[in-house]
Each structure stands twice: as C-alpha cells, then as structure tokens.
C-alpha cells in the first residue's frame, strides 16, 4: 500500500500554494534551466511552433534553427502535463477555487459576474468552447490570445522571460518590458473591461 507519509505529502501539496513557495520554486526552475545551458521563457515556444509549421517560408523571423529549441517545447509539454497532474490529482480541499480577495469579488460582481457561495472558480466559465461563439468569448479567447502572442514576441518575452529571468539578470530591457506589461494590463482592466463586461 502507499506509505502514509506519501499520502500526507500529497495532501500538503494539494493545499493552495502561498506566494512564498511558488515564487522561489519558479526561481529554482530558472536555475535548473540555466544550469543546463538554457533560458527560462515560455513565449519563445510560440515562435518555435510557428517555425515548425513552416512559417520560415513566409518571414525571416521564423528562419532559424528551431530544432535546437526543441527542449523548450518539452518544457511546455511538461507544463501541459503538470497542469493535468495538478488539476486531476492535486486538487485542494476546496476543489479548484481561486482564493481571491473580497474586494476583487465585489468588483467582479459589479461587472456582472455571479458566484455561488461567493466561491470563485479557479478557471472562469468563459474558458469554454460554448463561450467561444459569443462575441465576448471570441474577444477574450481569440483577441486576448492574439494580443499575447503578438505582444510577447514583439517585446521578446513574457512574464517568465522578462519579468522573472530578465529582471533577475538585471536587464534594463526587461524593466521596460514589464512597464509595458503593466501599462497595457491596467489600460485593459480599467478602461476596456467596463466597456466589455457591462455592455
């Protein structure tokens, strides 16, 4: 039978993780990747995936030796699997709920979201195929996804590449990038959301 301590470990991991565990863990992941001569940056995978699909024929940006970046695809694949493991086996005592603050919940409810028992699911309902076919769903999923893909490669990185790896390596460029991230994010949240969600 499974040793008792392993089950206890599983229960411990299944609790929601506090920031002071997650942050250092991410730094550790970055260290291991660096140690293996690689860099920590998820958005590079988008470029590799385009190149692998033949985008090299259409733009010079994709004419690079993408096969050498295959390891990063493995990291992404690992992330996919990690998500699967966490969602399936490591669900916490509350299930998959986002423990966000009351102030945020209040503001969401004002925008028209409703939550049973005041519990916010980890993943919003609009991440679904049904929602994709509403204009909001299309905007969020396709529009949002597009902006992330375009912006991340334009800026040369996303949260993992710039905010974490870049700033840890004291790159001024990454500071600019993060300023940009927040400018865009705040604009979307405060200016566009009321328009999108209250329409």
């Amino acid at each position, binding site marked *: 039978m499974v040793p008792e301590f392993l089950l206890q470990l599983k229960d411990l991991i299944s609790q929601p993780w506090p920031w002071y565990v997650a942050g250092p863990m991410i730094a550790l992941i970055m260290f291991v990747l660096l140690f293996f001569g690689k860099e920590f940056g998820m958005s590079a995978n988008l470029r590799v995936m385009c190149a692998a699909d033949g985008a090299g024929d259409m733009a010079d940006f994709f004419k690079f030796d993408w096969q050498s970046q295959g390891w990063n695809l493995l990291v992404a694949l690992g992330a996919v699997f990690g998500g699967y493991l966490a969602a399936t086996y490591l669900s916490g005592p509350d299930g998959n709920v986002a423990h966000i603050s009351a102030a945020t919940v209040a503001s969401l409810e004002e925008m028209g979201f409703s939550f049973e028992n005041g519990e916010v699911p980890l993943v919003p309902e609009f991440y679904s195929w049904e929602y994709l076919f509403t204009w909001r769903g299309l905007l969020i999923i396709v529009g949002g996804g597009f*902006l992330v893909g375009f912006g991340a490669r334009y800026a040369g990185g996303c949260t993992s590449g710039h905010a974490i790896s870049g700033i840890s390596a004291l790159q001024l460029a990454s500071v600019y990038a993060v300023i940009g991230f927040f400018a865009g994010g705040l604009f979307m949240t405060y200016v566009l959301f009321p328009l999108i969600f209250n329409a």
Partner: protein
Amino acid sequence: MGILFGITLFKAEAVSWFRIYEMFRFDSFHMYGIIFSAIALGLVVVQFIKWRHLRSTEGQEIHFQPKDKRWPRYIIGGSIFGMGWALAGVCPGPMFILLGSGYTVFVVFLLAAMTGTFLYGVLRKRLPH
C-alpha cells in the same frame, strides 16, 4: 522542469483569470508575491552563477547576453502583451498549463497566440523597434 512549472503555477492559482484581474486591481499581494519572490531568489541565483563562473552541463560558462536596449519594442510590445494578458487572463505559460488541466479550448488560445506571433514575424520589419 515543465511538469514542476505546471504544478507550481496551477497550485499557486497563477493560472486563474481572476487572479490576474485581481493583480491589475492591486487588490492582493499574492501575484506580486510570486513574481517578486521569484525575482528576489532569481537575483541571488544569477549573482551566484556569475560569482562562481558556473558552467552549465554543456561545459560552457553560463553567460547572460545583454538584451537589446532600444526601448520602443519593449514598451509597445509589452503594452500589447499586457492588454492580452489582462483580457485573456493568461500568458503563454498558463496557456499550456490549462490545456493540460482539461480546458481544451486552450487550443484556440494557443492558435490565436501563434497567429499573433506569426503576424509579428511578418510585420516585424515595418514595426518600430
């Protein structure tokens, strides 16, 4: 490493649209805690690597290539990314992670993101850098 990353972000709720919303509203320290503590430890890690001239498993000294400092690409690209980040509630990492958690609609997110990346690749020469 990928698996660890996936589990970490999922359990820390960093994959939640609601957490990202909360972050942009500054209603909680949580997301900032994750990012800052990662940076704090990351800074230590990088300094350690530089101080000890650590070599990677490939035998080369680990080297931090200075990034191009021309700021337009970062501010403009970053803002576009930020808008997408707030709207979609995910950045590339969580897209992969949530796909694994069973939200197959993320295939669409990823395709949209790839389209975005592709369009960037095509328009790149005409964009300010």
